[in-house]
C-alpha cells in the first residue's frame, strides 16, 4: 500500500513549476521563478542577473558567486538559465579530490612613482599587478577572512590572495590607498610604531586614521623593527625577553591609543622568529603572526608561522604571477 501511495506522490510532479506541490515551494521574487528545496534553491535567471547578484539576493553575501558558478559548472549566466543555489555553502579548507587550496599573502614595502629598488615597487608596476589580480579572477580577501580559513572556520574563494604592506611608508597613504579603493581590495598595513609621523617619508597617525576609516586594517610590526629572533650583543637573556615583551605589547598599546584599534596580528620584522617569540605572541593574545617565508598557505599552516611572499621592486609581471600560489596538487583518494 505504501508503494501505491508513493506512486500517487510521484504523479504530483506532473504539475507545472508554478504550482505549489510536494517538497517544492514556489515564490516570485521580482519576476524571477524560484523553487525552494530543503538544501537548495532552483532559480531561473533573468536579464541582468550575475552570480554575484544572485549570491547577494539568496545567500545575503555577494562573495559566494564563485561557489554558485562552481556548483553549476559554468562560468557564465544567461537569462532563462536555471541555477542551483545551495543554501548551506561550505568549502572550508579548500579541499578537492585533486589537492588543496593555498593562499598567497603578498608583502609590499614602499611604492614610488619614480625609482624602484629591491624594497620599492614602482607605482606603474604596482598598478599593473593590481589590475592583473582583477583580470585573472583573483579575489583579494582580508586578513580576518584568511585566518578564518586557517582555523577551518570559514570558506574563501579558490583564488584568494591577501595583500599586506610593511613598515608605514607615506606611499601607503598617497599611492596605495587610491589604487586599492579603485579596485575595492582590502589590505593590511603592518606598522612599527616608532617610525609613524617621524619623517617626511613616513605616514602619520592622522593619515592612518583616515585609512582605517576606509577599510584598511592596521596591525603590529613591533615598535622599533628590531630582529626579534636574536638577543642584542649587550643584552642579557632576561633583558632580551623583557624587550621582546615591550616590542610586542607596546606596539599594540600605541595602536590602541592612537587609532582605537585592537591589533590581532603581528608581522615579524625581517620575517624572523623563534619558538620563544611565537609563544610570547600567543601569550599576549595575538591571533596569528607572519614571516616572509615565500609560498602559499594551506589551512594547516601554523597560525604563528604564516608564509608571506615579498614582492620586490625588480619583479616583472610574470615574477609577480609566480608568487600567486593558489593550489597544491595532491590526489586525495
Amino acid at each position, binding site marked *: 500500500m505504501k508503494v501505491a501511495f508513493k506512486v500517487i506522490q510521484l504523479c504530483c510532479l506532473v504539475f507545472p513549476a508554478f504550482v505549489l506541490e510536494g517538497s517544492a515551494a514556489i515564490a516570485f521574487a521580482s519576476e524571477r521563478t524560484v523553487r525552494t*528545496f530543503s538544501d537548495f534553491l532552483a532559480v531561473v535567471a533573468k536579464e541582468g542577473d550575475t552570480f554575484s547578484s544572485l549570491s547577494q539576493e539568496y545567500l545575503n553575501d555577494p562573495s559566494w558567486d564563485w561557489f554558485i558558478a562552481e556548483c553549476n559548472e559554468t562560468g557564465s549566466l544567461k537569462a532563462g538559465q536555471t541555477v542551483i543555489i*545551495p543554501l548551506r555553502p561550505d568549502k572550508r579548507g579548500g579541499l578537492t579530490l585533486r589537492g588543496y587550496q593555498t593562499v598567497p599573502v603578498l608583502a609590499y614595502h614602499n611604492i614610488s612613482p619614480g625609482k624602484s629598488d629591491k624594497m620599492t615597487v614602482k607605482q606603474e608596476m604596482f598598478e599593473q599587478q593590481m589590475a592583473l589580480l582583477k583580470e585573472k579572477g583573483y579575489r583579494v580577501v582580508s586578513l580576518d577572512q584568511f585566518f578564518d580559513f586557517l582555523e577551518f572556520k570559514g570558506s574563501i574563494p579558490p583564488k584568494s590572495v591577501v595583500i599586506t604592506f610593511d613598515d608605514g611608508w607615506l606611499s601607503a597613504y598617497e599611492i596605495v590607498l587610491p589604487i586599492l579603493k579603485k579596485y575595492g581590495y582590502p589590505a593590511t598595513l603592518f606598522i612599527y610604531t616608532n617610525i609613524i609621523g617621524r619623517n617626511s617619508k613616513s605616514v602619520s597617525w592622522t593619515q592612518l586614521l583616515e585609512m582605517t576609516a576606509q577599510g584598511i586594517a592596521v596591525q603590529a610590526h613591533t615598535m622599533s623593527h628590531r630582529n626579534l629572533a636574536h638577543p642584542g650583543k649587550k643584552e642579557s637573556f632576561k633583558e632580551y625577553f623583557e624587550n621582546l615583551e615591550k616590542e610586542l605589547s607596546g606596539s599594540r598599546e600605541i595602536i590602541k591609543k592612537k587609532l582605537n584599534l585592537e591589533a590581532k596580528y603581528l608581522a615579524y620584522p625581517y620575517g624572523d622568529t623563534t619558538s*620563544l617569540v611565537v609563544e610570547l605572541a600567543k601569550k599576549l593574545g595575538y591571533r596569528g603572526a607572519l614571516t616572509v617565508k615565500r609560498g602559499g598557505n594551506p589551512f*594547516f599552516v601554523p597560525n604563528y608561522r604564516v608564509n608571506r611572499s615579498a614582492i620586490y621592486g625588480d619583479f616583472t609581471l610574470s615574477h609577480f604571477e609566480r608568487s600567486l600560489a593558489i593550489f597544491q596538487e595532491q590526489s586525495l583518494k
Partner: protein
Amino acid sequence: MKNQFAEKGFWLLLVLMILSVSGCATSPDKPAQTLPTPSPDKSRQPLPPSALPGQEKTKGKDPLYEVAEQYRLKAREDEKIGDLPGALRAWEIVKGILPDDEEAGGETLKLKKQIPAFADQHFQKGLVLFRSHSYALARKEFLTALYLNRDHPEAIHYLKHKLAEEDFLVYPVKKGDTIRGVAAKFYKDPQKDFLIARFNDLKVDSQIEPPRVLRLPVLDSPSAKRPPLSPPTAVDLAPGKILDFQDDLEKSKEAYQRGNYRESAALAEKIVVSDPENREYRELMNASYYELGTQLGREKKYDEALKAFHRVDSGYKDRDTQVIQNRKQLAEFHYLRGVKFYIEEEIESAIQEWQVTLTLEPAHANAKKDIQNGRTILQNLKKMK
C-alpha cells in the same frame, strides 16, 4: 495486511530461501503475491535514465527535469572518479527535484553511510602512519579524511597541531619540584626561572605541586634552522604533549581489570597518542579495543564492534579475521533488514538496506540480485498506474 505476517521469523526464512534461489520478482509464493503483480520479463534489463520511473510523465513539463538529469550525470561521473562528496551533493539535488527517484534516494543513503566510514578509515590509516613517523603520508590520509568529511575535528587537530613542530613542552610537576629546579633541568639554567613563571602566570618563588602542568617555551635557533618534525626524544619531554601518563595508565589498567573495556580503551588511546613508541601503552590499547570489540560482537552490535577492531593494530591476535567476520555479520544484518522491509512492501527501504549490504560486502550475490528485482517491481508498479 501486516497481520498476515505474524510469524515473521518463518516468513523471513522462507523469503531468504526464495531470494537465494529464484529472486523475489518471479516468486509465486505468498509474500510476493501480496505485492501488486509485476510483469517480470520486460524489466530484467536496467532501464535507460530517460525512462526512469515517474520521469516519463514529467519530461517536457517540469522545467527542472533537465536540471535533475544533468546532476544525475554529474553524480554518476563524480562517483566513477571517486569524488564521493561531489556525488552526494549532486544526488541530493536530484533527490530534491525528483523526491521519488529511487536511484537518487538509494545513492544518497548509501553515500551518507559510506562517506563518514571511508573518512574514518583514512583517519585511522593516518594515525598508524603518524605513529610510525611517516608524516607526509599521514598528512595525505588526514587530508583525505577531511576532504570526505569536513566535520572531522580529530583530522583537523592532527593536521593543524600534531603534524606541526610545537613551540612548547608540557611538563607535569612532580613532588618536590621548584620552578628554579625545573629551569635548571630543562634550560640548563636556573636563572631562566622567570621565563617559566611568566608563561605559567606564577612567581619565581611560587610553590608548585602535582597535578599542575607547566608550559615551557622551547628555546631554539631562528625559524629558518628549525629541524624537521622529529619524534620526541625522551618519554618525559615531548613537544606540546602532556607528559604525565601515570594517572591515566593506572586508571586504564584498573578499568581493564574490571572489564570496562570501553573506558580502558579510551584512556589507553589518550596515552598512546602522547607516546606512540611505548610498547606497554600500545599493548594496553590493543588489548582493550580487542576485548571491547569481542564483547560488542557477542552483543550483536556489529557496527560498534567493527569500529573497535579497527582501532586495534593490524596483526594483533586474530584482529584481522575479526574485522572481516564482523563486517560480514553487519552486511547480513542489513540484508535481513532489507528482506523484512520487502515483506512489509517497503521496497525502497529494502533496496536501501541491500545497498548498504553491498557497500559492506560487494560480493554479496543475493543483495545485488534483490536490488535489481526490487527496482523492477517499482518500475512496473509505476507503469501500471
